[in-house]
């Protein structure tokens, strides 16, 4: 703007209509700031030193010690078990619900159904957490049944809206013409579904499953409240470890967990992009 040109009476139109002063700098700062902390965490997980701030030498010792840690091992197994069950349950339920809310004429109660499905997204997690805990303790007292099933059920519930979103989006993008053609050729409804709808829907289902898995794997608050003794998931283990004191081992476990999420989410975006083509 100020390139030493003499002031004109009429303000010159900016050469580039779209730029606003300082906006690019702020944007670059934000993107850098979003990644810098994670980068620091990852870098110091490879540090051959107890310090999480002073770099000495590259080493995998914290990964080795993390893999050898029995607490981390069992937490990882529980995390995966819960995430797997929740993902399968939530994805199947969400697929069914998505079919019911898109492949029919609008019906009374449709808005209510949307509302119920999205409810876990609207209530603060801490509220859901203590509410679920109160229900589960009542049920546990009344029936005497304990176990990891409660945790899996809770995870399934809050994973449903995440699985539902991409599946519904995919269904809304799909035209009905192929299904109608199959029906015109006398394919029974189940066959139309199995041979036409389901294959076309598969990218959406995979995307939904990936989101559900990541969301379950990352959950802290609900798990913290609902999990019984011996049901420590990885995030809960990490939270406990941070409270006890910062060690590079936490960085190593965190890095692995971050990598898993990144891998899944990157996959999700790839699937979405392929589906759009």
């Amino acid at each position, binding site marked *: 703007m100020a390139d030493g040109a003499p002031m004109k009476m009429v303000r010159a*139109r*900016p050469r580039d*209509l*779209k730029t606003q002063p*300082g*906006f*690019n700098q*702020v944007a670059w700062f934000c*993107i850098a*700031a*979003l*990644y810098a*902390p*994670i980068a*620091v*965490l990852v870098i110091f997980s490879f540090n051959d030193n107890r310090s999480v*701030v002073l770099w000495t030498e590259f080493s995998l010792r914290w990964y080795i010690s993390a893999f050898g840690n029995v607490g981390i091992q069992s937490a990882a197994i529980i995390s995966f078990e819960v995430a797997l069950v929740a993902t399968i349950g939530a994805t*199947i*339920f*969400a697929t*069914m*619900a998505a079919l*019911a809310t898109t492949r*029919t004429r609008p*019906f009374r109660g449709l808005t209510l*159904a949307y509302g*119920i*499905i999205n409810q*876990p997204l*609207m*209530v*603060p997690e*801490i*509220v*859901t*957490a*203590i*509410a679920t805990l*109160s*229900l589960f303790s009542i049920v546990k007292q009344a029936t005497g049944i304990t176990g990891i099933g409660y945790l899996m*059920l*809770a995870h399934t*519930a*809050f994973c449903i809206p995440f699985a*539902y979103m991409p599946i519904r989006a995919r269904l809304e993008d799909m035209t009905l013409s192929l299904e109608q053609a199959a029906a015109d050729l006398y394919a029974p409804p189940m066959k139309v579904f199995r041979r036409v709808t389901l294959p076309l829907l598969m990218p959406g289902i995979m995307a939904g499953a990936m989101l559900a898995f*990541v969301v379950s794997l*990352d959950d*802290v608050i609900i798990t913290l409240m609902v999990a019984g003794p011996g049901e420590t998931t990885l*995030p809960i283990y990490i939270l406990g470890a*941070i409270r006890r004191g*910062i060690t590079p081992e936490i960085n190593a476990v*965190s890095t692995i*967990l*971050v990598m898993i*999420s*990144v891998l*899944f*989410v*990157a996959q999700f975006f790839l699937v979405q*992009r392929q589906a759009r083509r």
Partner: protein
Amino acid sequence: MSVISETPADHATTQLRAAASAVRRRERRTRGILLAPALTTILLVSILPLSITLIYSFLKPGSYGGVEWSFSTEAYVQFLFERDIFEDTLAFHTAYLQIFGRSILLALVATLGALLLGFPTAYFIATKPREQRNLWLFLITLPFWTNLLIRTYAMLLIVRDEGVINIALMKLGLISEPLAILYTDKAVFIGLIYSYLPFMVLPLYASLEKLDFRLVEAAYDLYASRLKVLRRVIIPLAKPGIVAGCILVFIPGLGAYITPELLGGGKKLMIGNMIAIQVGSSRNWPFGSAAALILMSLVMVSLLIYARSSGREGHSDG
């Protein structure tokens, strides 16, 4: 549709209607079967528990945790008053109100901070060539999908006394002793912005992407300055995105648990931590439930404000 007199065609119509209603009935049944598992799970594990919370909030705390089944509004009274156990009088106290006030204030300030940072970021992405935008959006959303706890821990590594910021500033000789950021409201503020910035950028982008730059051009032609174009053209047109982004940051910020827990050191409480403490270590279920319900009402009110404002937007547009 209206049948005036009895004709032979009438019979056929009746039959058709019967067939149509049979199809509709079957459709309804299929729909019911398909919806049942998802709705049942959420009703059972999310909505039913909320009703229990509502009931609990009107009960008395049990002596050994749990609840005593007698009606009481004590949990709500406790918010504003402290009961003197010897004289059974109520004295006004503001400890809990302060926690709510601080949570609302922190969430609001963090929302404002996220808006100031998020708006230029969203604008930056929206003015990139179309084929690049998805990549930029991906870069913004990716951190959101990584574990919030881990991101907060990463932020803790940055802001603590021996953290990256302080070490760097001390090495540069700008400060002689570390800035105390961790375990203050500043750290919680930074942590909240860091956690929820993607929520701000995405709806803002959705609005800005649709921005018609011919309007900007027209404004410049009419001798508007850059600032004026921003204030009078771009920002008003991006208003739906601004409102949506603010709501999306404010709501999780208000109910935040992990951020104040780790970065506030458990001393600078927000509502979320208070609820967890009441239910966990204090074992005061009615009070914890009441606090949870008040938090939820605050969230519902913000959603309502959002729904009304976006409804109005839609109305004036259409």
